[in-house]
């Protein structure tokens, strides 16, 4: 199990990386942390002609607060998100999620940019940026463009990035007053890809949601911002209302079948997560009790 031969170019700047991508088009792959790319190459599922290694571009690594935005460089590693005080303060959802991403040795190399650009529908960070209402910053030959996270993911391993563009940063609105988060996923083993997961961002005031963004993952070909959340916003949440939202959620999901779960199981688990999430965010454990029985 050895990767097929390829050429290697170590980018010296973002500009240089873009030039390399422009020159090689879709025969090139961007190498950042490599934690998804390398397994695929070792298995010869992918054999790009050239790898453009952006790993040395220090300008793309780091976490900073600018105004009311938390700006996370694309090369920021999972471990950085886990340890960052800024992330803990302003977007703790990312920290909570990263604890579920694979294992320490993977988190030391894997990057947020790599994870988002890879767009595995079962991975955590895409759902988080959707739930957080983040913006993806990409740079290409024509300059920089900003893409809403909800518009970024287009399908399994498909994004709005074109082959000559580089994902450079993620901008996350800093958490405001009353902001609260919930992250949970059901995975067969520690660090496995989720069977179903939920990254949620909410604003709770006086026992009600004034905002609720539910980012489900592993329930379709991309992270899903559940419309069913709308039923719970600015409403008095009762078991009946929650059951209604769960039904709406099950209807809007179109989950895939795989070796871990049937579509019916994914719908079911998503509704369990919805109940557990709402119960946790509103601190009302009675809402957790089954509506599915």
């Amino acid at each position, binding site marked *: *199990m*050895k*990767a*097929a*031969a390829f050429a290697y170019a170590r980018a010296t700047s973002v500009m240089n990386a873009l030039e390399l991508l422009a020159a090689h088009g879709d025969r090139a792959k961007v190498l950042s942390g490599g934690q998804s790319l390398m*397994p695929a190459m070792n*298995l*010869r599922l992918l054999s790009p002609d050239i790898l453009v290694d952006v790993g040395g571009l220090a300008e793309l690594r780091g976490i900073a607060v600018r105004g009311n935005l938390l700006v996370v460089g694309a090369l920021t590693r999972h471990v950085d998100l886990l340890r960052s005080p800024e992330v803990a303060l302003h977007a703790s959802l990312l920290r909570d999620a990263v604890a579920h991403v694979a294992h320490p040795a993977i988190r030391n190399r894997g990057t947020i940019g790599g994870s988002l650009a890879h767009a595995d529908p079962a991975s955590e960070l895409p759902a988080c940026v959707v739930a957080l209402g983040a913006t993806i910053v990409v740079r290409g030959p024509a300059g920089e463009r900003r893409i809403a996270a909800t518009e970024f993911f287009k399908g399994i391993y498909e994004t709005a990035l074109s082959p000559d563009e580089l994902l450079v940063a993620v901008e996350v609105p800093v958490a405001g007053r009353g902001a609260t988060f919930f992250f949970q996923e*059901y995975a*067969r*083993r*520690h*660090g*496995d*890809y989720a*069977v179903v997961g939920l990254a949620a961002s909410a604003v709770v005031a006086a026992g009600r949601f004034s905002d609720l963004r539910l980012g489900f993952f592993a329930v379709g070909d991309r992270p899903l911002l559940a419309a069913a959340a709308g039923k719970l916003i600015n409403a008095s949440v009762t078991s009946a209302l929650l059951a209604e939202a769960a039904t709406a959620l099950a209807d809007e999901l179109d989950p895939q079948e795989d*070796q*871990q*779960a*049937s579509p*019916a*199981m994914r*719908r*079911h*688990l998503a509704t*369990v997560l919805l109940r557990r999430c709402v119960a946790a965010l509103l601190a009302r454990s009675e809402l957790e*009790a*089954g509506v*599915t*029985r």
Partner: protein
Amino acid sequence: MTVTRAPAETLSVLDRPNSYIGKTVPRPNLDRLLQGRGQYVSDLELPRMAHVVFLRSPYAHARIVAIDADAARRMSGVIAVVTGRELEAVITPWVGVLSHLKGLKSAPQHAIAVDRACWQGEAVAAIVATSRAAAEDAMEHVVVDYEELAAVTDMRTALDPATPVIHASLGDNLAFERTLDAGDVDQALSDSEVVEAEFVFGRHTGVTLEPRAVVADWNAAEARLTIYQGTQAPHMVQNIAALHLRLKEAQVRVVCKDVGGSFGIKVHIYADEMATYALSKLLRRPIKFVADRVESFNTDIHARDHRCRGRIGVRSDGTITAFEIDDLTGIGPYSMYPRTSAIEANQVVNLVGGPYVTANYRARARVVFQNKNVMCQYRAVGHPIACSITEGLVDLAASKIGMDPVEIRRRNLISDDAYPCASPSGMKFEQLSHHASLAKLLQMMDYGALRAEQAALRTRNIHRGIGFASFIEVTNPSATFYGVGGAKISSQDGVAVRLDAQGSVICQTSITEQGQGSESLTAQIVGSVLGVSMERVRVILGDTDNTPYGGGTWASRGAGIGGEAALQAAKALRQNILDVAAAILQSRPAGLDIVNNRIVNADDGAPRIELNELARIVYFRPDTLPPGIQPELMATRHFVPRQYPFAFTNGVQASWLEVDTETGFVTLLKHWVVEDCGTIINPQLVDEQIRGGVVQGLGAALFEKCIYDERGQLTNANMADYLVPMSGEMPDIEIGHVVSPTQETELGAKGAGEAGTAGAAAAVANAVNDALRPFGATITEIPLTPQVILTALGRI
């Protein structure tokens, strides 16, 4: 660990002062492994060594119309591309049958497929190059023209007249069938409550962390083949390689240093390994084959793919009146060589109902061919299946009559004073301890308190379960296992012990080490018997040129058989040493002893002469010895069990777990095992064998399954999709022992390597069903995935 030991009636050679027997001492070979200085076959490089990769059939069943390797042969680094037809000139095909498994049939299998590939993963061509990467590059340029054939994939329809026959010469797809009818099952069931269930077992595999690896080095000038291989049975490899390469055994040396896990995966000889030996002979240079992980999933033997209907009869007083099973298993297109693929089903028939007194037992087992990877013996062969069926049925029976699962076992387990006795299937039991083991287990787990906790939690909608599994385990197999069927697999082992010129001991044994502690237990026994400290004992194993002839390490036989040979060899050497010492000291041998590396007086322990001084005299100044004395400071002994075909062990396991009934996820909380392997040489090593074995069983219970599609494609042949047990989900495992030594040997040790795996899945399945009892759901299928559990609960 806690031990209940019957009082020893007499002091044996093992109860000497400073004995290492029964003591936890660190294994002598660990530092090498801890510092990254192990010598695994994967690490080995030889001058002129080339690497082979195998182009493998992408189809489950296909005719090979043509192979075009011209482009590949011209590529950089490529040494040769060899087809099955070309390799036939060097190596003969084989048929994996044993005569004592009556009716077992199989077809000739080639090292590389000739004309037809019979499973996805069967080697179709070998590409030899200067590096693995170069060989893989060239492999992409070998063009094979296949004609896809209908694949037989579902064992349930493999025998239907409409299903194609995989090997026309065999007439049908039935490899083996065994039936058994003991007592009067119909009568027994007619006046009992009868409970019936179908038990389904996922196909799984061993996933040794170091894949199979071999370096074959044909030295044409010496006409000798050296095989470096991670194998459990070097002499078996020697015999088979010689046979099919048309060599004498003396022309084949098998060397086996460190092995990265075996578990039965590495006790077989695989076609690609045979091909590697042959390629070395053909190309006259060392050839290295290391399976990559995908190849491992596609070609390492699979196991356990069984479907079994089981019935149990029970009376209202809890008496179990009969067991009946109808077992079906699909083994792939060939019976594996040389141990065959009928053993697992045969063991299921042998073992069902084994712990219980019931005399009425009827069984049928059918083994069918199919176009999937081959199945064969993997750790605890047949045991987890037999145990899951038996213990699942016992729990179903208890539930039917409203009896506690412990109580029904108490009423039916063979009494501890009933031995020797035999099972309805004819298995002879020398001495087992089911009741003592169960009593000890209940005490360790505090059963009453656990039941109370379970009840309290249920009121809070938390669903925990307790599951039990009593089991028996086949260990120390005699020639009954393979030899009588014609396989050249030795059931005896040999140990040679010698004193070196400085009073240290060199010990050569035919058992092998893959981490179980063979080296340690040999040194412990030899050191104890000789009166020599362990650090002075060096153990050599894994080299057919440098060890006595023997079976190796498999079927829980290393300690019981190899250990006894070590004991007897050490006793003989001890006597030889004392004879010489008596001559030197002008004393009587009986008046002397060896303690702490010196000869002492047997009565008062007074030191007489150091062993190194004795050795100096023997080796360098024999002229000073009395006339007529010829010292023999080397002794060799062999041992094989004769009285009992197998030394059965027994034990019982319990699982405590929680089921999230909303999600179907199971959390393992705790696991207990009490087992009886007779004399315990090193308590820590025994416990760790059991723990490791339990976790393999837990993997089977919850996670592991080779998933094939209807066309015979293995769809999860990687470690991301085939789920092995990892540390995050595994529980702590508490272990206790009851000790009933076998009287067949002086050592008294029985095997312990497979006890954990035998009962773990059964205990978990029973615990899950116990947790689900309020929901009226019963599951008799493993792995117990969330999908399976949610389905049983009617949630989806």
